[in-house]
């Protein structure tokens, strides 16, 4: 996970199998959406040497003025100008935009969740397969070093047979735009925020056979809060708890995990593991919306580098469309559990049908 953000695109994007067509031509990437997360995509795409064209219903000129790139006025214009598309829009728009990009023959990066419903993610994964196009869901937590270490510790057998896993993710309620608060559009905290840890739990502890969830909401329309607890039973017998908080606006963004197996345990707390602690009168507190990251090892950069490397013929990334689809299915099972008030059994044959794809690479 050493990252050299200044590295040239040609060095990184040259492919080992001789497909050098793009090696000396910048990747042409279309970024759709200019909201919060685009601030964590555009600068890194530019650093990777890509020519980036930005389309958004709103905010594209401001975003481009901040980082660079080229504003385009229509999606058609964007699709005509690029080879790859990065969809960084609200969840409920992912399906139609990703589908449109795939149908135009583009390889696609999609922000998580891959789409809102099971039918939508199934359709997108199948479509990408059918067209022979790459489709990468941006589960960026897989690129955070502390989670990479967890995955490596588990895969190496150092922790033995996993027994009990806890994950927590806590921050401010995203009120800057209204669609997060609409559960029909966003899927709420489980589909938007906790899907990160749902994906990580499945990545490290394997397929999930049962899901249950409880949730609470409080506050008011201007200062809402939301929380949920999700329990997962893995096919191995391991059990996972995932906690999510969208709290008041002053709440810093923090994550935790604690994983125990028969041979050892590994735990991490972002609040505890800090290498720079300042108490300066002149400085604002940390953001409640995004984790603090080390710029020398920026996970968003590492993620986009891995995806764009793959676009250029490089290695298969650590997260597949099938896995993004499975994370959405598990999040939707948790939402179903909220409705029924009972745990939801996951159809194991389907979960294992694509075991190879779901093997986390």
């Amino acid at each position: 996970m050493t990252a050299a953000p200044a590295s040239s695109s040609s060095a990184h994007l040259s492919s080992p199998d001789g497909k050098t067509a793009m090696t000396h031509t910048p990747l042409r990437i279309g970024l759709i959406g200019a909201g919060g997360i685009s601030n964590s995509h555009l600068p890194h795409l530019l650093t990777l040497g890509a020519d980036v064209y930005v389309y958004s219903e709103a905010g594209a000129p401001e975003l481009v003025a901040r980082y660079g790139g080229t504003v385009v006025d229509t999606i058609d214009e964007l699709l005509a100008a690029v080879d790859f598309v990065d969809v960084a829009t609200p969840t409920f728009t992912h399906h139609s935009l990703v589908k449109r990009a795939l149908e135009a023959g583009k390889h696609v990066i999609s922000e998580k969740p891959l789409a809102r419903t099971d039918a939508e993610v199934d359709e997108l994964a199948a479509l990408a397969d059918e067209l022979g196009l790459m489709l990468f869901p941006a589960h960026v937590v897989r690129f955070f070093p502390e989670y990479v270490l967890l995955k490596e510790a588990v895969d190496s057998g150092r922790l033995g047979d996993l027994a009990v896993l806890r994950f927590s993710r806590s921050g401010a309620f995203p009120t800057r735009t209204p669609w997060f608060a609409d559960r029909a559009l966003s899927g709420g905290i489980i589909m938007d925020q906790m899907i990160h840890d749902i994906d990580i739990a499945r990545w490290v502890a394997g397929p999930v056979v049962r899901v249950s969830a409880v949730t609470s909401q409080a506050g008011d329309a201007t200062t809402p809060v939301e929380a949920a607890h999700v329990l997962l039973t893995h096919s191995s017998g391991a059990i996972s708890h995932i906690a999510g908080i969208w709290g008041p606006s002053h709440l810093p963004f923090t994550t935790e995990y604690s994983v125990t197996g028969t041979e050892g345990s590994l735990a991490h707390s972002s609040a505890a593991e800090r290498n720079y602690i300042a108490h300066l009168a002149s400085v604002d507190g940390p953001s409640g919306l995004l984790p603090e990251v080390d710029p020398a090892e920026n996970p968003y950069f590492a993620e986009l580098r891995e995806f764009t490397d793959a676009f250029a013929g490089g290695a298969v990334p650590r997260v597949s469309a099938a896995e993004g689809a499975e994370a959405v299915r598990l999040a939707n099972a948790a939402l179903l559990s909220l409705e029924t008030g009972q745990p939801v059994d996951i159809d194991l044959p389907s979960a294992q049908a694509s075991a190879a794809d779901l093997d986390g690479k």
Partner: protein
Amino acid sequence: MHTSDRPLKIAVMSFAHTHARGYIELLRNMPSVSLLTSDPGEHPATELRGRAFAEQLGVEYVDSYDELMAWQPDAVIVTSENARHRADVERAAKAGAHILCEKPLATSHEDGVAMLEAADAAGVILMVAFPVRFASTFARLKAEYDAGQLGQIFSVRGSNNGKLPSERAWFTDPELSGGGALVDHVVHIADLLEALMGTAPVSVTAVTNQKLHAERARAETAGLVTISYDNGVIAAIDCSWSQPDTAATWGGVSVTVAGTAGTVAVDFFGPRARGLDTATGLPIEAPYGPNFDEALLSRFIDAVRTGTQPQPDGGVGLRTLDIVLAAQESARTGRTVAVADIARALVE
């Protein structure tokens, strides 16, 4: 009733629970307390029990509960196996002694109800040993919550992790313990939540497994529980015996409470000095902080002297037990269980 011109007579029933040692070590140093202990019955040969245990601690001992009750104690501390709490509490109540019962209150709802009725009928105090309630950090959390500084609480996350108890074999015998990690560790945090919010649990979901300490365990060693409360709050508790035998400390208890005005995280046994052992590289951990048992005993003794029922009482003991029973039922069936059904099942 007790008058303060003579020492308070406190009897300890059984050395089965490892906490008996801690209570005795505190009580034997109190000049206003006269202590008598008894630990009758057959004991595992490998465990220091009975008269030998009392002698090691330097406290008075009698061979039978008949002799213990004939001493006419003002108060009794019940530290027997969980499944024997009912018989011992009923016996103490019948003798007119006030009672401090080790947690969990019992291993069945029926036993718990009978214990409350026995104390009620005898007019004696029944207190349940939830010492974490007496942490100054909990008092601070409670004060900040009561002052509105957390706003409206909407979510809680707690963990009570420890080693698989090894000093006493009965902890892993479900016949005597009532189960595994669920019955051992869910009640502390359930008690804290009731003390904090005063709300009733509605439904419980639990998942468990027996992967850790598989060679010794006869019940679940890992458990995760979610609870929905009638005020809309959701809570999750990790009750696993996930601390390995080789760990530097027994484990700990922590809660993180999220409210509309902010969050508070409490690590009740967290503060410690840390180092490394030169020869092995293993961590040295030296936890410090007040002994919550001391405050618990002090509250109980005050209550005995004044004759007023303290908290945590048998009622919260029973309600937290019901959460455990619902969690066990959920783990068994794979269903979410209504806590009311635990009590209702008894009536039907």
